């Protein structure tokens, strides 16, 4: 639940509030997402505080990945509002009408958000170094020297110091995903979206990738929105776990509570199925 803000006392009314509160980094207000007639998310309201790490769990098709894709503007928002740092990401309420925000404003917000994909999505026609430095140089306008230095230190951090000049296709899946993490971090995102980042990996390299993400979580203040099936990882790194089913939040809370003593039967069933298969 969004924390009430004390600065705007006048705005506190009983009506559903479409203006964002000031603290959350990400805020969903009455979000609806439909693909044609298929409603994936409906009346979704939640917020993520700065530096908070939130894991979304739930069965396939429950809309978890769609939430990340909406934040990254990879999907069009069909209803409601999403605010990043209090600013409208794709649509805003203007005198009671829902209007699209300018592309420029959206782009400005988007540079604060980074995403790591299930399928890595590295650029195969570029070297590892070029993959990591492309956006810092050409989007953020950093000098080549700084971007390269940062890329090398990130490669060090993800355990691939000698792969700067390799091409992605010559790397294993786990190595590619580590490069993809470095590429996302090179943009110094305020928000990092992790979309099933270990689902396409061989089991033996999953822990390497998760160890890197744990380290990122421990050493930075980056806000994370995580979709994963790795429950141990979710339990370790997240401040909050949200259980989804059918586009709704079934329950949310501290990982210790959700994983050991969930209130909802749906959550219990899901967890026993997932953990049982491990």
């Amino acid at each position: 639940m969004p924390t009430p803000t004390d600065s705007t006392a006048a705005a506190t009314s009983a009506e559903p509030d479409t203006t964002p509160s000031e603290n959350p980094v990400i805020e969903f207000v009455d979000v609806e997402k439909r693909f044609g007639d298929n409603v994936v998310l409906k009346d979704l309201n939640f917020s993520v505080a700065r530096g908070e790490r939130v894991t979304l769990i739930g069965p396939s098709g429950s809309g978890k990945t769609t939430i990340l894709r909406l934040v990254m503007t990879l999907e069009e928002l069909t209803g409601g509002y999403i605010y990043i740092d209090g600013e409208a990401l794709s649509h805003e309420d203007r005198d009671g009408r829902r209007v699209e925000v300018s592309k420029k404003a959206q782009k400005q917000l988007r540079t604060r958000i980074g995403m790591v994909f299930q399928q890595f999505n590295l650029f195969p026609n570029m070297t590892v170094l070029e993959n990591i430095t492309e956006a810092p140089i050409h989007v953020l306008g950093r000098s080549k020297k700084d971007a390269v230095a940062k890329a090398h230190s990130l490669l060090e951090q993800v355990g691939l110091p000698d792969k700067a000049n390799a091409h992605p296709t010559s790397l294993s899946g786990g190595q590619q995903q580590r490069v993809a993490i470095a590429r996302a971090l090179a943009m110094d995102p305020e928000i990092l979206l992790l979309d099933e980042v270990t689902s396409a990996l061989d089991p033996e390299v999953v822990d390497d990738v998760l160890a890197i993400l744990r380290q990122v979580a421990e050493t930075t203040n980056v806000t994370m929105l995580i979709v994963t099936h790795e429950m141990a990882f979710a339990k370790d790194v997240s401040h909050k776990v949200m259980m989804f089913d059918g586009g709704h939040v079934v329950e949310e809370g501290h990982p210790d509570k959700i994983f050991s003593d969930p209130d909802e039967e749906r959550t219990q069933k899901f967890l026993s199925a997932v953990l049982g298969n491990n």
Partner: protein
Amino acid sequence: MTSLNILAQEADEPVDPGGPWWDWAFAWDILPDMLLAFLQYTLVVTVTGTIIAAVLGLIIAILIMVLPKPLAWIVRWASNFIRMTPIVVQLILLFWGFLWLDALTIGIVVFGVHYATYMAEVYRAGIESVPQGQWEATTALSMNPVRTWRKVVIPQALRSTIPSLGNYAISMFKDTPFLYAIGVTEMVTLAVGEIGGTTFRYNEAVTIAGLIFLAASYPTAILINRLEKRLAYAH
């Protein structure tokens, strides 16, 4: 053909259509003229035409994808129209429509534009073969459209289009005899119309023309093959 009848009637002595099937001395005699015609017209039209087609084709493919719908529709149908009408018709139409332009220029433009519409289709397929995840990665990195096309989409699209582009270049090469329709004496016109028409010896000239085509096409095909391998990613 009427021109041949006239030539035959005007000849003082009837030319002996017999004689040896192949005359080495005659072949040697006509070779320089044939090579010159090849370089002057066939090669010039093919090389400049291919460059125009490769560049314009890419522009057409991108325009169709990025323009607002009504404009994209116009470009697409103009491209379809050009692609689906015979190149000879286009040559003749433009030749008589733009009489102040010389025939060679008309030839280069028509070949370039006609094949651009084919190459646009190849590029389109190449662009569509770039995985959705690549586009999503450029969005996640906030790359602008120009950078996205130039550094991510086009390089990956080109990789799969090189073989088809090469084949169209060779195909254009073999279409150059159509230039006879606008009076350009390229190699085949020279062989059949001028040399064959005046001497009634066709074997040498036509065979040499064929061999020159082969000698030029084959290395081109090998070159394309090499390029294709070089563009493939290391595995």
